[in-house]
Structures are given as C-alpha cells and as structure tokens.
C-alpha cells in the first residue's frame, strides 16, 4: 500500500475508534483477565508444594487443582489486601476510633497512594508526548534529573521559609526534568534524530550523571563515605496528608491537579489542539500551518517536566535523599501506564492507580506468601502487551472489536 493510503487509513482508524470507546474497555478487561491467568500459571510453577501435587495428577487430580487454586487465591488475596486493606480491619478501626487502628487499617491505601503518585506523573508526561505523536522513552533519566534538581534545591538553602522553599524545590525539579526532555526534542527538531534513540540513551547518561553527582562535594552527604545525597531540609518536604505514620503526602493531590491540568491542556487549549493535530496527522498539521518542529520541542519539554516532577515528588515526599539508581523503573513503568491509559489523562490516572495498587499489594504478598514482588512486574508487562496488540485478544476470545489507532511508526518518523 502506498504511504499516502497508509496515512489516510491510520487517520480513519483513529477517528472511527473514537465513538466506540466501549470496545477499548472490553479489550482492557479481557487483557487484565488474561494477565491474571498468566500470573496464576507462574505462581503455580513457582510454588514447590503445588508442583509436587501436579506430579501426582493422575492419582489425585482433585488435589493438584485444589492446591493450585489455594496458592493462586492466597497470592491474589494478599495482593488485594496489601493494596486496599482488610475490610474487617477498616470496619474495626471505625468502631474503636483509635488512631493506631486507623493507621494500620489505612496503611495499605496510603502505600497504594504513595506508589501511584510517581506513576501518574510519569505516565502523564509520556502520554502527553504520545498524543503529539512522540515516544518519550527517557523517563528514567527524567525522573533522576527531576529528583536531583529537587534534592539540590532541597538541601542548598537551609534557611528559607517553607512557603518559599517547597515551591522552589518543585520548580527546580521540574526545570531539570524539562531540560532532560528538551534535549531529545531539540535534536529531533534540528537534526531529525529519532527521539526514541536519543531519549533512551539519555536515560543512561542520567544514571551515570547521578552516580558521579553522588561522589561530589556538592551532593554527597558528609562524611562522604556512603554514596547518598545530603538530606532535604524539613521546610522543603511535602507535608503528609494524614499524620506522620502514613507516608501518603501532598504530592498525590498535586498529581491529581496535574491530571486535570493536562486534560484541560489537551482538550481545550490551542497548544493541546496542535499536539493532537501533530499526533493524528503530521502532514495535515504542517499544511494547516503548525510549526511542527517547535511543537516537538514543546511537547518533549513538557513531557520531561511532568516526568521530572514524578522524581521530585518521590524525593520531596517520601525519600528525602537520593541513592544511586534512584527512581528504579519508574520511568519505564510510566510507559506502560501511558499505554494502558491509552494516552488520555484520566486513563493514565486509573492505570497508575492499578499499578500503584499492584506495587503496594505486591510487597504484602511477598511477606505473606513468599511469592516474590516481581510477579507484579510480569502481570503489568503481560497486561500491556495484550493492550498494545488488541488483535491478540480478539483472536483468543474470538470477539469483534474496532482497531485501536497506532501510536507510532518507525525510526524514520
């Protein structure tokens, strides 16, 4: 098919998929179910007692099935309790009214919120880039830079009042993240270098930059033996939402505000309109007079800023100092959040909540059942794999659903 018809068809696909949103919900649900099934198989494989039961399958098949069911139910059960909490505990807390009961009953929800917040911000940034037809794969680097900026501002001005210090730390974090997003944007605009390659490489530049920063006099905590940064002062920290024993903090509220903000930006503002034009059809955007190179830079910078804020929120709200490899896989998880959320801010919020719950619950599951936390990572990957290829779900469940629009082309784009 000629290039022109490809383009025309892509646009048609995308437009036709809009009124049939319900289909994407069906796909997502079926993908979620499939991921749970794959996860169940993995749990069975990894539980020695269940595997022994399967060895005697032909003698007592019922036992093998029952053991498998028990193992899977226990794992998923503690995943649920670890993410949302035990309903009985919550009810008991309301009955007794004691603060300590509330803390333990709402601990899981607080942990879910803590894990959700950075995923929301990282997913939001990457989703914004998606909507402009760009793939920001440099989340890891942007998280590190954002956190490094916030940390620097957080320890460098010990005498500032909180009313100034916290906004300053957030601003510096956002600026650092934005700078790390600006580089792939300007390189794409000026030289055509593909943002996937450049932003991916910048991840590792950022990672090594942090390793180096943590050895410098500026960053490293005295007596400069351990590789950790200085600690952020009290005035620059994000206050807790519900008392000092729960880690839940104001970054969650800020993240929700950003969800609304980006939603408005994409749906109601000129900037967002240009981004969406760019994402749907670059050529049409160019013909309509959009300076697309400028939009590349703007979209990547904004994306970098949002992802950078994810790092700033983590360090200002929870950790208060940085260690090597800070942020872990948050930047990459942001990609899966953005894909699962199909690039819309509300979708991102919901997917981040799901993955945040997974992460918080995974820790409880690890403690209660000895099933390693990494199961959650596998579940997320399988879920997103199916969401990214709705055709697979269609084949497995033999259903008819509309084609989802392609996010992205090849290196040449």
């Amino acid at each position, binding site marked *: 098919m000629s290039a022109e018809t490809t383009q025309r068809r892509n646009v048609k696909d995308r437009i036709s998929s809009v009124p049939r949103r319900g289909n994407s919900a069906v796909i997502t649900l079926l993908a979620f179910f499939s991921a749970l099934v794959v996860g169940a198989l993995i749990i069975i494989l990894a539980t020695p007692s269940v595997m022994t039961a399967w060895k005697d399958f032909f003698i007592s098949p019922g036992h093998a099935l029952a053991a498998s069911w028990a193992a899977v139910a226990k794992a998923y059960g503690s995943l649920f309790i670890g993410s949302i909490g035990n309903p009985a505990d919550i009810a008991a807390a309301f009955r007794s009214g004691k603060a300590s009961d509330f803390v333990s009953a709402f601990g899981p929800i607080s942990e879910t919120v803590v894990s959700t917040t950075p995923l929301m911000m990282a997913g939001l940034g990457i989703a914004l880039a998606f909507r402009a037809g760009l793939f920001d794969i440099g989340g890891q680097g942007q998280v590190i830079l954002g956190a490094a900026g916030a940390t620097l501002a957080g320890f460098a001005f010990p005498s500032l009042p909180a009313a100034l210090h916290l906004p300053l730390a957030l601003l510096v974090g956002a600026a650092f993240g934005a700078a790390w997003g600006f580089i792939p944007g300007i390189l794409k605009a000026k030289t055509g*270098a593909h943002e996937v390659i*450049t932003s991916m490489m910048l991840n590792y530049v950022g990672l090594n930059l942090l390793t180096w920063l943590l050895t410098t006099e500026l960053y490293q905590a005295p007596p400069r033996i351990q590789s950790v940064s200085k600690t952020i002062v009290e005035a620059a920290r994000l206050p807790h939402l519900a008392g000092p024993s729960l880690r839940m903090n104001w970054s969650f509220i800020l993240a929700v505000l950003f969800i609304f903000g980006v939603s408005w930006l994409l749906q109601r503002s000129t900037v967002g309109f240009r981004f969406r034009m760019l994402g749907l059809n670059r050529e049409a955007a160019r013909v309509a007079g959009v300076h697309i190179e400028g939009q590349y830079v703007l979209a990547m910078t904004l994306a970098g800023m949002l992802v950078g804020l994810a790092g700033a929120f983590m360090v200002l709200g929870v950790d208060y100092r940085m260690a090597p490899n800070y942020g872990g896989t948050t930047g990459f998880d942001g990609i899966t959040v953005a894909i699962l959320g199909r690039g819309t801010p509300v979708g991102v919020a919901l997917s981040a909540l799901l993955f945040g719950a997974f992460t918080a619950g995974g820790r409880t599951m690890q403690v209660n059942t000895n099933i390693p936390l*990494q199961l959650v990572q596998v579940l997320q990957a399988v879920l997103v794999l199916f969401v990214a290829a709705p055709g697979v779900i269609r084949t497995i469940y033999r259903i008819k659903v509309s084609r989802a629009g392609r996010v992205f082309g090849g290196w040449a784009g």
Partner: protein
Amino acid sequence: MSAIVSPGAAMRLKRDPAEIRRHGLGIALLVLAGINLLLFARGTAGDVMTTFLLTAAPAPPVPAIRLHVLPTVLVLGVICALLGILQLAWRSNRRTYLLLGIGLALTGVAFLAWAGKGVSVDAEGLLATSLIEAVPLTLGALSGVLCERSGVINIAIEGQFLISAFFGAMIGSLTHNLWAGLLAGAVAGGMIGVILAIFAITYAADQIIVGVVLDAFALGLTSFFLQSLLVPQQATLNSPAVFSPIPIPLLDRIPVVGPLLFNQNIFVYLTIGILVAVQIGLFHTRWGLRVRAVGEHPRAADTVGINVPRLRYGNVILGGIVAGIGGASFTIGSTGQFAPNMTAGLGYIALAAMIFGRWRPLGALGAALLFGFCDALQFTLSVLSVPIPSPFLSMFPYLATILAVAGLVGRVVSPAADGQPYSRE
C-alpha cells in the same frame, strides 16, 4: 510512513548527504586531534615515560614498549589532524569510517600514554577485557541488524539477553552440561523473538512498545524465578560451570594477537563465526538481497514474489537466537551464576552499537569494540590516578550514539521500512 513523515529530512537532504558526512567526519577527526594536542600534551613534562605491557600466556614474552609521553601524544595528535584535513579535502567518500576508526584508535593510545604517566599499563589485559566485553554487545547488535534489516525494530535485545542468561545458567547447572545451557539460552532468546514476531508481524502491534514491554517482562520473569526457584536451590539450579578457553594450537603462540584471539572460550569463536556469516549472508547471498529488499521496500519485494511475513518471522527469530547466545555468555561464559538484572542495560548498548555501526555487521563490531574498550578502560583507570570520573567513561557509548543519530558524525540512516508492519491490501 517515512515518505510522509520526514519532509523535514527531505529538506535537509537537499544538501548532498555524502558531503555532509564527509565534512562531519573531518571535523570529528580535527576535534580528536585537538583533544590530543591541547588536553593530553598540555602540562605533560618532557621526560615522563609510559610502559605498555603486551605479554600474556601462552604466547612467548614480548618486550614491553616504553614511550615518551609528550612526543607520543604530539605525533599521534598531528596524525589525527592530518587525517582530518585529508578527509575535508578529499573528494571521494570511501574509507571515511575507516579513517574515523584509525583516529579513535590513535586517540585511545595517546590517552593511555597520558593517563599512565610514569607507570605501566597492562595493554594486553585491557585489550583482552575489551574483547570479552564486546562479545555480547556484538551478538546483540547482530541480532538488531538481522531484525531491522528486514524491517522489524528489536528493542527487546535487553530482554533476550536477560532471559537467555537466566536459562543458560539454570539449564547448564541442572544438566551439568554447558552445551545444554548454551542451547537453552539460544532457544530462550529465540522464544522472545517468536513473541516479538507474533505481536509485531502478525498483529501489527507497535514494535517499539512491544520491545519495551518484552524487556520489562523478561526482567520481571527472571527476577521472579530467581527469587522463587533459584535462590532456594542455589546449588542445583544456579551454579553452572563456565566454558573454559579453547587454545588453538600454534596460533595461540603468536605474540600479542595469539592470546587475544586464539585462546578464548567458545563465545568469542562463535561471535566471529556469526559475524562473518551475517556479513557475507547479508551482502553476498540471495537471502541477504531479499532481506534488504524487504527492509527497504516490502511492497516491491512482495511484488516479485518474496513472502514478506515469512522472511521477517525467520529473521526476528534468528535474531533472537543470536542475542540468546550473547545472553548466555553473561552466565556460562563468564561469571557462572545468574544475578538479578545482571545485564544492566547492556542490551540497550548493543542497540546503540547497531545504530552507531549504521545497521551493518562490521560497523556493529567496530562500535561494540569501541564501547567494550570504554568499559574496560574503567577498570584500568581505577588503578591509575586519572582526573576523569569513571561515570563519564560509562556515558561515552550513549553520548557517541546521540551524536551519531543527530548526524554530527555523519548521518545514520535506518532501513526505510524499519518499524512498519506490512499488510498486503
């Protein structure tokens, strides 16, 4: 899609791309000369000497080379400058990358002479480490070449590395047979290739997304089973032996080169073999012509009767197997045990090596050697006292790749149909 999306590129290409590349390379060489002359030569006293050790068993000992630092740096810098001027003045565009390679190698020597001021540098050890580091990078990059030349982007190299390192260690340990481990690694890498192929070719899913997610999948899966199966049964499941070096009689006695190339384990020989096979296969056989045709213009290839999906399936799976062999080298080729996330982003460096090597097997080898050298240099530099923090050396491959794709060192161009699903209608 490329025809539509890159009118910007088309506008830029109004200037002759070959000429831009020629100028870019010339300037790069001049920059290297500048580094030599300004950075290394300044502040170096006239009588400092650096000793290069070049002896390794089983080759007969070679006398160490002692060089005066200042003259060495000056001479090498001037050669770089001459090469740069030659490049700028030369009309022909051939051999440009060879010149860049020479310039980089000369700068490397000058750097070592400068860094090793007054002490001795184990040059043979450095080269040997570079070569070992380059083995998985080359295989990963070749995997990328195989996939992307046929038009499928493979970002899952990292995942293929991890999963094959895992299965190489586990099967090698369980069966007490390293060959079984190697086979298991290759098959595991191939399986990731199969998943990538099904999603990318049959279901036309976004290849970059599928690749990224497969990396996450492999990381999660290997860490999960490491925790739940391998750690509790460390002795039976995660203590494989490692392949020992196989000396090639007589050849391993050649001074300097012998121990480097002819006294290595099976992975080095396999890498050389696969490299030669891919290079010849891609550019001198009917299969290679078809692969390149499908990667550049699948519609035209289809018109003349090539089965595009089948060829892509074959290449993606073959690529997975090649990356799988590379991944197995992490465990049964060097350390033995599997550790969580042990490849630590090397799959992405392999991808970078493929891009830096301009989607060519030999280019990929050159890039992998360069990146391997950077990595090996960190160990050497931690012994010498050099005012360059090692994280900056670790950054080099990534920065070099950014410069390469930005066209500052000659523009790199991917196969035209890379990343685009093909459908017949």
